[in-house]
Every structure is written in C-alpha cells, then in structure tokens.
C-alpha cells in the first residue's frame, strides 16, 4: 500500500464529502476509520475488505462480481450467433462493393483479388422462448438461450490482435492504461479478506494449437498503482507465484519466522512511527493466509461428481477452460470481484471447419454450466457473465473456398458477444447486421458502450470513475461510451 496513493484516496473522499455538503457523516467516518484500511489485502493485492473509492458504487449495483470469459483470437460470429441463411445462395460470389464500402482490411487479405463469400457450413436453430438463432456448434449454450443476452452488433476500432485485445480490455489500443479488472479493484476494492480482488486464468484451445499469444498488460494496472493488477492463477507450478514455502521448511518453522519478522517490524514501527511498517506487518499475515486459502480454493477434491458432469470431462484437468470455469465459480463463491478467463485459439484464418469444433467443445458446455451452477446456488442474479472476443471475422474467405472449408480474416465492423446475469435482460437478442454480417444495421454497440454498460451493472457511472494521471482525468471509456439500455434488465 502506498502512502501517496492512500493520501489521494483520502483526498478523494474529502472532496466527495465536501460535495455532499453535509460534512463527514457518521457512517462514512466509520468506514474511513476501518482499521482494516491499512491492514488488509486488495487488488493486486491490497485494498481491504472495504478498500475502494469513497462514493462508489455510485448507485445500487445489480452485479457484485464479474466472470469475464474472454475468447481470444476473435470467434467467427456468422458461424456461431449471427445467422445468415441467405448467404448459402451467394456461395463464392464476390463480396459486393456496396457492402465492403472500401473499409480497410488487414495486410493478410488486402492483396486478395477477390473476396468470395463463404457461408457458414453449420446449421442454426432457434432456441428458447426468445427464439435466438444459435449454431449447432453450441448445443449447451443453446439450452441456456433464455438466460443470456446475445449482442450481434458489437464493433471495435482495431483490426489486429494486439491493439484490439488491448482496446477491449483497457479502452485504449496503446499500452499503458489500466484494464477493466484493475479499474474495478481500484474503484470498488475487495469483498474478501484472503484472496485478491482480481484473478486471471488462462487456457489453450484445442481447435488451433498454435495461436495468438497473450500479454501481461491485459491484466496490468497501467497508470494505476500496481497493486491493482490482476493476479494470475496458474495451472502449473504454484497457482500464485512464490506461494509455496521452500523445500525443507516446515509449517512450524515458517510460522516461527513470520512471528519473528512481525515482532522485529513492530520494534521498528515504534522507533519510526511510519504507518507503512504497520501495512507491511499486515501484508505478511495476509501472505500467510493466502498460503492456505489458495490451495484450499484450487483443491477440487471436495467437489461432488455432479460438478464434473455439469462442466464436462475436461473440468478435471487443470489448465483447461472447463477446469477454470469450475475455479471461477469457486472464486465467485469467495467474493472475488473480477474473475477473468482467457481462452486462446479463436484466430481461424484458414479451415474454420477444422478449428471450430475444438474451440466450441472446449467452451460450450463449461460456459453454459457456469450459468446453471450459479443459478442453482442463487448467485446468478448478482454475477455478471461476459462471453466474447476482441473482434469478429470476415464473411469472405481468406485463402481458398470450398463447400467444406474456408478461412476468415479479422473483422472489426461487427461481432457477437453474450452477457448474462446481474443487471442483464435475459433471453434477449440485441442488434442486427446486414445480410453479409459485415456492417451493423441496427443498434450498434461500440466497445466503449459495452464497457460503460458493464460498469453500470456494477453500480458505477463510467463517467465518474476517474484517475488523474498526466494532468488528465482518465476513464476506461475515454470520453465516449453510451449505456446500452436495451440489454439492461
């Protein structure tokens, strides 16, 4: 915890109270005086059980936590959610200029002489009361169609992976801004006392074994203090870096060492009077607690058989998406605020039909299971689930086209995502694209709009959660972002 920053928090609080013109109310004072303020964990990690900014949430939140199922690489919208039956007749026709409208393409297809239309080979059916069209590749998602809200009109500004993922996670294509999870840690602090507020888990797709890499910056805190960065839960080695005691050191010896460190630090605290020393003492106790809370969390032996049936066979294998979904639910139960999964392998430039089955079977059942599981536990209504990638894919083929196979390049002008749970109108399909799934024809949702809406579900006015850096009050939505009211419950 850093005093500078703490002081800023304090000032923010003061400004807030100043603005209410009633001075410091009793309740507010009590929260300020929370002795945990200096003494507990948070974001990356620190923030206390209270820990966030005063005045936040701005209004009653619908969701207490987020599980963000990020599908890295850019899933193909017209093979999954954006049904375009008319394309079958347009097989291999050149994409009309009236549709392409001279929009920029990546360097991978901008030299193609033709842009033959590649209709999806998959069958679609309507599901649930909402009648949402969902691809045969997602049978489990189809079963929860009435719980989710599909947005078919997402759009973004970037056309390559690195800038596009950075954009959707941080609101800027350029490195250096905090990601969404960090903003939440900073703004809302942590709800629990022995786990970080923001946890990230990564899995590899089986559809495309060599795919796009990820970057630390995606869960980095940018210009926010680094304690707000996401903590990566890893599937090999220690789940959290440096969690295990060195070999040969018993629990008893470790405890005795920690006691000594604590006592010696206290002597120094008395001599120097620096509250930072008190913080340090608390952080060591917190570290000790994590050494038991994290292994406890990642130990799935107490899960009943039914869990693994629900999430599918892969859910027993550490490092898979399914396993991470089970962990996500366990983290949600422990009130971790922002749980983010990254699933790699959606960048299907060629042979979509060869790569799609693996990706879909990795993610379909576990994602749907998460919804069912949270519902069973009464947690669905205050958990926001987000499923989607950084952009969509082109209707025209990249490389050769056949009836059975086609490739698809990056497409920022429209893509599909789904949201479910706290604050979201269930059984909704929002937005429309043209006959080619190329341009949006109704209710466009920009990345900034999506982020503003996610913040809204968490009780935050995106224009009012700011951090002053380099003379400017930064927000995750920059100076943009409109609430997507049509998807809100």
């Amino acid at each position, binding site marked *: 915890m850093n005093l500078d920053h703490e002081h800023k928090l304090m000032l923010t609080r003061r400004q807030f109270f100043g603005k209410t013109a009633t001075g410091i109310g009793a309740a507010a004072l009590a929260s300020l005086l929370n002795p945990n303020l200096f003494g507990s964990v948070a974001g990356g*990690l620190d923030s206390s059980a209270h820990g966030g900014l005063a005045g936040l949430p701005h209004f009653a939140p619908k969701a207490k936590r987020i599980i963000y199922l990020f599908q890295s690489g850019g899933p193909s919208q017209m093979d999954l959610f954006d049904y375009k039956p008319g394309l079958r007749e347009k097989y291999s026709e050149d994409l009309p200029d009236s549709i392409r409208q001279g929009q920029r393409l990546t360097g991978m297809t901008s030299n193609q002489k033709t842009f033959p239309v590649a209709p999806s080979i998959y069958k679609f059916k309507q599901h649930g009361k909402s009648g949402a069209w969902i691809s045969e590749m997602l049978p489990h998602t189809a079963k929860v169609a009435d719980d989710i809200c599909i947005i078919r009109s997402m759009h973004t500004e970037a056309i390559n992976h690195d800038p596009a993922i950075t954009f959707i996670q941080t609101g800027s294509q350029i490195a250096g801004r905090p990601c969404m999870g960090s903003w939440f840690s900073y703004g809302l602090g942590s709800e629990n006392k022995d786990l970080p507020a923001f946890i990230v888990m990564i899995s590899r797709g089986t559809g495309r074994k060599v795919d796009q890499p990820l970057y630390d910056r995606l869960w980095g805190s940018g210009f926010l203090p680094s304690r707000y960065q996401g903590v990566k839960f890893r599937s090999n080695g220690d789940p959290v870096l440096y969690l295990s005691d060195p070999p040969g050191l018993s629990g008893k010896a470790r405890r005795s060492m920690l006691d000594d460190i604590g006592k010696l630090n206290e002597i120094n605290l008395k001599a120097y009077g620096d509250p930072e020393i008190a913080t340090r003492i608390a952080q060591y106790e917190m570290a000790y607690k994590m050494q038991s809370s994290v292994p406890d969390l990642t130990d799935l032996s107490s899960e009943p058989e039914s869990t693994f049936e629900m999430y599918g066979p892969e859910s027993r294998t550490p490092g898979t998406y399914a396993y991470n979904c089970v962990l996500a639910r366990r983290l949600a139960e422990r009130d971790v605020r922002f749980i983010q999964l990254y699933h790699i392998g959606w960048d299907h430039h060629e042979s979509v039909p060869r790569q799609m089955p693996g990706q879909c079977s990795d993610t379909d059942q576990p994602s749907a299971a998460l919804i069912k599981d949270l519902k069973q536990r009464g947690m669905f209504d205050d958990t926001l689930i987000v499923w989607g990638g950084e952009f969509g894919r082109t209707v025209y083929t990249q490389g050769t086209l*056949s009836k059975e196979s086609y490739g698809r390049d990056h497409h920022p002008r429209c893509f599909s995502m789904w949201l479910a749970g706290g604050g979201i109108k269930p059984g909704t399909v929002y937005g429309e694209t043209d006959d080619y799934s190329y341009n949006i024809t109704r209710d466009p949702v920009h990345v900034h709009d999506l982020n503003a809406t996610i913040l809204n579900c968490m009780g935050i006015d995106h224009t009012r959660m700011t951090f002053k850096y380099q*003379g400017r009050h930064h927000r995750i939505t920059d100076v943009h972002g409109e609430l997507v009211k049509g998807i809100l419950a």
Partner: protein
Amino acid sequence: MRRLAVKFFVVNALVAVVLTTSVEAQKPVSAGHVDFTRDIRPILSDSCFHCHGPDESTRKAKMRFDTKEGILAERRGRFPVVPGKPDDSEIVKRIFSNDPDEQMPPPDYARQPTAKQKEQLKAWIAQGAPWEDHWAFEKPVRPELPQVKNKKWPRNEIDHFILERLEAEKLKPSQEADKATLLRRVTLDLTGLPPTPEEIRAFQKDKSSKAYERVVDRLLASPRYGERMAVDWLDLARYADTHGYQVDRERIMWPWRDWVIKAFNDNMPFDQFTVEQLAGDLLPNATLEQKIATGFHRNQRINMEGGSIAEEFFVEQVVDRVDTTATVWMGLTVGCARCHDHKYDPVSAKDFYSMYAFFNNIAERGVDRENVQRNNIVSTRPFLKLPAPELEAKLAQLDETIAAKQRVVDGITATLSKQQVAWEKQVLTNAPDWKNLTVIEAKAESGKPVLKASNENSIVTEGEIAEADTFVVVAQTELTNINGIRLEVLPIPGSTNQLGHSKDGTFVLNTLNLEVVAKAGKRLQSVEFSKVSGSAARSGFAATLLLRPRENVIGGWSAESKTGEPVDVIFETKESVSIPAGATLKFKLTQNNPGKTQMGHFRLTATDNDHPSPLSSALTKIFKIPVEKRKVAEVKSASDYFLSYQAEYRTASEGMAQMNRERKTLDDQIPRTMVMEELDKPRDAFILVRGAYDQPGERVFPAVPAILPQLEPDAPTNRLGLAQWLISPENPLTARVTVNRFWAAYFGNGLVKTIEDFGMQGDLPSHPGLLDWLATEFMRVGWDTKAMQKLLVMSATYRQASQVSEDLLERDPENILLARGSRMRLPAEMIRDQALSFSGLISEKMGGPSVKPYQPVGLWEELAAGAEGTGFATYEQGKGEDLYRRSLYTFWKRTVSPPAMSTFDAPTREICTVSRSRTSTPLQALALLNDVTYVEAARSLAQRMLREGGSSVEQRIRHGFILATAREPKKAEMTILKTGLEQRLAEMKSDRAAAEQLISVGDSKADDKLNASELAAYTTVASVILNLDEVITKQ
C-alpha cells in the same frame, strides 16, 4: 495485544489525515489572500477549460479563460471578469446561479467548483483579478537565498529554502540521521547497493567533518553509480530486450543501455547527454558512440503482427517519440493534442504535429517482418553493426573465396548462355510425355485395404481403410532413364470429386520415396528430387512441403478437385536416373495424418524429358518475349532458370549457396543495435485528423510549441535543432523537469509532485524558489549531473532522520515540507541487488547482453499459445554468473515482465514511465520469503554469518544483521533472532533431510564444511532479516 497496538496507531494516523487540512503543495496560505496560481487557475482549469480553454474545436460561445485577454474580453455587452467588481462579472453570476439555464458549469458537468472555490473566485476578482501566466512556461530566475532564523542548520543552499518554509509553518527540522542509517541511505541512493562492513567501520571511525563528503565522493566515483542512475533512465526510455507487441521477439538494444551507464559514470553533462540521444547521428562527424546513443528513440515497441498495417504503426512510433520527448524533457503531456487541441494546456494539434515532423524522417516502415537474425533476434532498420574484429576478418576471408568462385562461375555462364535461346524454345514446345508404368505389386502397409491396379494402371483402394497408412507400389517402366515422376490423384470410383477417404473427402500425402531396385532385388539407388510442383494446393498444404518432410511433422500436399478432374504432383529428379534392364521402381507413399486422409484412387507415370516440371506462367511469359526486349529482372529470372538445368553450371557453382549461408551466419553474429538515421529527403508531415493515420489534414513543418520560446533563427529544423532548443538557457522546462526528477529519487516526492506534468493540471511546486534555484544552478554548473547529486545528498535536508512523530505525521503525512528524512521502500532492482550483495553472490560484471536469472517455470510459455521452442516463447534460464548479475541486466520481455521486478512495481517498459508506484502487497512478502533468489541469498548470507561472524551465536547474528541493515541490532532484536534460531535449530537437527533440502535451493552449492542443520537454521534467520521492512526500505 500486538495487533491491537497496531490498529490503534493506524486509526490515529488516519483520523489525523482525514480531519486536519493536510499540507498543500504550495506557498503557505495567508489569511484572506487569494493567489491566482495557487487557488484560481486550478478552478478555471478544472471547471471551465473543458469548454472555455485552449481547444478551439470544442470552445463554447467563443470564450476562453486560459488567457488574460480571453477572460477580460467583452462578449455581447458582458464581461466574464471585471477586475475589482465581482458583482459585474459574468463568471460570478453564473457560478452562483441556481437557474439550470444560466448556471455554469452546467449542472451535469462532472467537475463542479466547491462552495469555497466559488468564494475564492469572487475574492480574486474583488482583489483586482491579478493574472499570472503559467509558472512553468516562464524562464526560471535564480532567486535570492531566503533568510532563515536558525542560521546553524543549513549546510547548503537547499536548506535555506526548506527551512524558510518550515519556519513559516512553525515546524523544526529533524536531527541528522545516525551515521549507520545515513551511510546506508546514501550508499543505496547513489549506487543501489548496501555499504560493506568495511565501509561501515571506516565511516564510523572517521570523525572528521569531511567524513560524509568523502563517502559521497567515493560513491559518485564508483562504477556502480552509473548502473544506479541508469535504472531510472531506462524506465523513461522504455528500454527492453523485446519488440513488445504480440509475439514479442528478442531485439538487441543493450549497447544503448551500456552507453547510458557509461555516460553517467563519465559524468557526461546533461546537455550533451540530451543532444547525443536525440540527435547524435546529426552531429558533425558523429562517432559510433554518438550514433549508438540515438537508440533512445528506437527503444520503443515495434509491431511484427501479421496483417498489421504499416502506416498505422509508423504513426504510432512517431507519436510515441513525441510523447516521450515531451514527458522526459518538458514535463508535458502532449498526447491529448494528437486528436484535438489540448483541453488544459496551450498545446494545439498543430503544435503536436509540428513536433511530430522532427521525428518522422527515419528510414523505417512501421512494422517489421524481415530482419530476423539467428535465434529469432530482430533488429529493425535502421541499425548499425558493432565492431567485431574477429568476425569481420572471417567475413573478409570468406568474401574473397566467394568472389574467386564467382569469377569461375561467371566464365562458365558466359559460354553456356549462348545455348539459352534454343533451350527456352525447346522447353516451350517439347512437353513431357508421361509413360504409364506396369504395376507389379501394390499394397497398403496396414494390411487393411487391397490396392488394385486397373487396366489404365491406376490404383484403387478396396475394403476397410486404416486410420493412417503407407502405400507401397512396385512397377516397371519401358524408359531407360527417367527425369520425372508424376502422381495423379483421381476421384474415388463412384464419387464425383472425392479424392481421399477423410470425412471431408480430402487426402494428404506426407512423402513420396522412390528406390530403383535391380532385377536381383538389390537396391541400386534412392532417388533424390530437386523440385516438386503440384496442382493448386489447399491452404497450408503446398506441394513444396513434400521436398522437405520433417520428422514427426504432419504436413504435406493436398489438393481439392471441384469438377472431378484429377489433381497431380510432379517430382523432378536431381540427376537423370538410369534404369537398367529388368530393374523395378519401388514407391512408398506415406499418408500419416490421422482421420483416413489416404488417397482412394491414384496413378503413377514417368518421363525421360529433361524438363519434366511444368513451366510457371511467369516464365512462360518471359520466354515468349524476345531476349532484347526483356527487362533486367526478366533477363535474370530466365537466365537463373536456364542455368539451374545446366549440369556444368551446377557443378561449378556447387557450394556457393552453402558459402552464402555461412556468410549470413557469420554476419548474423555481429551484434546490431538500432539507431536513428535521417532520411536524405524529409517526409512530409500533416496534422492527422482526430489522430488517425489515414486522415492527413493541413501540412506542417518541424517547430516547437508556439507558447514556448522558439528555435533560434539559424538553428537546424531537425532533431538536432530540437535537442539544442531543449537545453537552451531560454527553455523554461528542461532544467526544472530534470532537477525535479533528481529530487524525487532521493525524497520520494518531486518538488512538483506531478513529476510527469508541469502543465496547468499539474501540481504547483511545494518550494518554487528552490526548484528555480536548482534549475538555474544545474545550468550554471554546466549541466553537471554528478555535482547535482552531490548537492542534494550533501544538504542537511537529506541527512535528516526519518523518524516521525504522530503530530508531524498528522500535519504532513506525505512529507512535503521535509521536516524529516524520507522513508521509502526500495525499488525492485535495489531489493534484489542488495540481497545478492550482502549474501556475497553478486557478480560485478558490467554491460553486455541481458541475462536470464531465476524465474518461475512456464511464465513465458503459458502466454505464448503454442509457439514454444521458438526462442522468443521459451525462457531459457541462465547459469552461473548470469544468475547473480545486477537487476538492470535482467532480460526484459515486455509482454511478460520479469516477475521479480514487476512484483515490486517495476513497469512493463511498454511506454515511457516517469515514476513507479510504491506498493506493499502480500505477493511481495511471498516473493521475499519463497523466491529461489531470496532463499539462496538467505543461505549464502547464513554462510557468511557462520564463516565470518565469529564463534558465538550473538556474533554470527550480529554479523548478518549489520550486513543487511548497516547497524547494530538492539538487545530486544537480538533476543528475538536468537530465540527464533534456537527453536528452528532444534527442528533442523531432528530432521536433517529437511535441512539438506532447504540449503540446496539455488544453483550455487552450499558450503559442505558447514553443518547442514546449523546452516539451515541460520538460513531461516537470514531469511527473517532480509524480509524485514527496514531492510527493503531506505530509512
């Protein structure tokens, strides 16, 4: 009880902070007086500038309040401000109005002025509305030294300014820190390493008044000083060892990093340091070193992602240079002006792109996919090669050999070319005649399907198909020699266009092997192929893959037939293969991809035509052009192709390709470093509308922001001119911004707290006089960096003890007034370096390629998405000395920062970082307790305690304690450490195996002369010591 005491204390501290007005950054408030710069401009900036500020495009009602003229100007008969008459001033009316239509700022505007601020605005106007231009844009003037009451305390000029403010605030400075604390503080501050016991003893013994100064001079002269100073500069320069985007390949920029260290150690004046890094290449007769220095602006990230649009990232690179230059030297955030005029500071979009015009003249493309050296290391042009005499000599020798051989080849070529025209004609007209083979035997190795030869000598699979298979075909030919083999794949009988047995009807051929077998059954020859050409392949299944089959790699040729026509692939033999009478051809066709990707119907044929491969359409076209009408490139391709079919030529040039490869390998070993290099003709620069790379607007020319003093009329309008302008005595910013950064390194806060922002939204200086005095002093001493460091650490202000009373903490929690020394957690590098140092593990080797110390396994790999084994995706941990180098030599991969650094707040180095946060987290505790680095360091420290400390437990503990803290342990501390040792020693004695395990952590070997249990127990004590808050803190 213990916890309670802490809580109680913390609560008090908090109440203090919250309930008292803490120290404001600027001059003390005298009752009733409102100060424009301190009180008023921040209100205008925060609440008004957004619509009434420098940005013309969003300015409302044509009113601007960021200039004196603007705020006094008449607008429709009314005046925003009428000096002395608040009631006539429109601003006052509007801010006090409750009418939503009148009210300013509008009710929905986020940053409303407070009641107090409204009153201040009113008071300011009543005082006559005195206007001051923004302080940071005015040239610093050297102030008189302030008068102070306590004449004894000040040791140098700095102290006069600090004391003046303290006296005004009715505070007293703290006493000087004790010698041990002071020595440790200054040694860490100037070298990043702790003092040795010898240095501690020497300083304790030296009772002269010069003792401290002698220490400072010694430290400034140490080569460790340059390494320490470099760390902060590397953050600013966004230095790293990888390209930074996406796959994030390795680059070489360490020669630049070494240049920085040397520049600090040589005490290169800061003005020269500036000019050489921004424009060293433009200096007359620029030296190699001066060119290397320009790597400063090549440290930025470079995109290699496939499909990236070069223009887009070209712009990003130039923009990053503008942002970084403005932040580092000018303390200004100009990035906003990329898209629109700045909202708060007088920097217009035109100013921004005029700065941009200085930096867009480098011969670069914006993306890089070409210059990959050995081991996937990339240097993106422009780069220069570092001197490497041995390699250069080898290269020269090889070049001579190549040249000699080339002369022979040229001679032969001249003779042969006379036949070229005739040869071309023959190739065009004489198409190969493919002869059927007589199939003697055909079988599948799996034994599952039967291979049946039809009457057209094509082969069909019948019966059950294996998951994967290899077909063996033995056949005879009527030809006496063969030059080519053709494999046709035909639709499976009964289907229209299904060529293979896989689900989607496709096949994949992995390899084709051919042996010639004599009548007697003896293998005569395994045929080598030189060329493969096939029907249009499916994406990723090019026929050329058949030429280079790799072990265990499933890949190969596959084609699809839309209409049912056969697809084919032609293999050209390397040499003509003679077929003795009665000999047979034995083919092996492997089809190992899972999923039944075998062919269902195929035919093999052969030819003796010496040009069996189909001529490419490009060459067909060229061959049809009369020789004299061909373009240079066409002449070359035709000639190369012709020669490739001439045996005489092939023999003569044999080895040439190999030598050229060797040449590249040698050349690749010469380290390169990226530099700036100006294009002969500058690129045009334009304002980019809303910052978009593809939206050029008005054309602009290199210039500095209009609000600041301009370039000298005769100054070059290039980077050199810009660099010289930055260090000109007329420039109000550079010296201030730089001394402020120096200040922050020692005191935690800058005199201007927003170190990165000297603009109108930035904080005001806490001690404006001191800032200006230091800035003018820096220039007066000729930008002497070491002299400035000395000045700062020699001050009484710096030497104060850092103990703080509750009263003072309450009054000044951030230590803005400096009534005490600053107490700060050490930066990441210092924490690790100090542990390596006092444990005796540290390597003092300076410079060179970055190293890979301990790092938890799998960190790079888990983000690399399957690209393992490609060098940039697999972390190959170093060995020996590499594990113990100073942390600034740690390999810095931007997308996966070294965790030992990032856990302690080191930035990712993706963009310029001015200051790091200083956090305290449980993850840090876990790292210091459990990271191999620190467990090994604890054991090494324990060895020193046992070997050097003495014979008693107390002596040994004392030795370790002094090594880490530079001071004697207190009695209570000794008791805790000793009791802990005894407890754990008993345990380690009873479990020797565990003790052995603990002391074997790390690559260095434990001292086997020491008793394992004892060493393990001392290791735990050493670990306790190096985890102490005091040890990771500069007290």
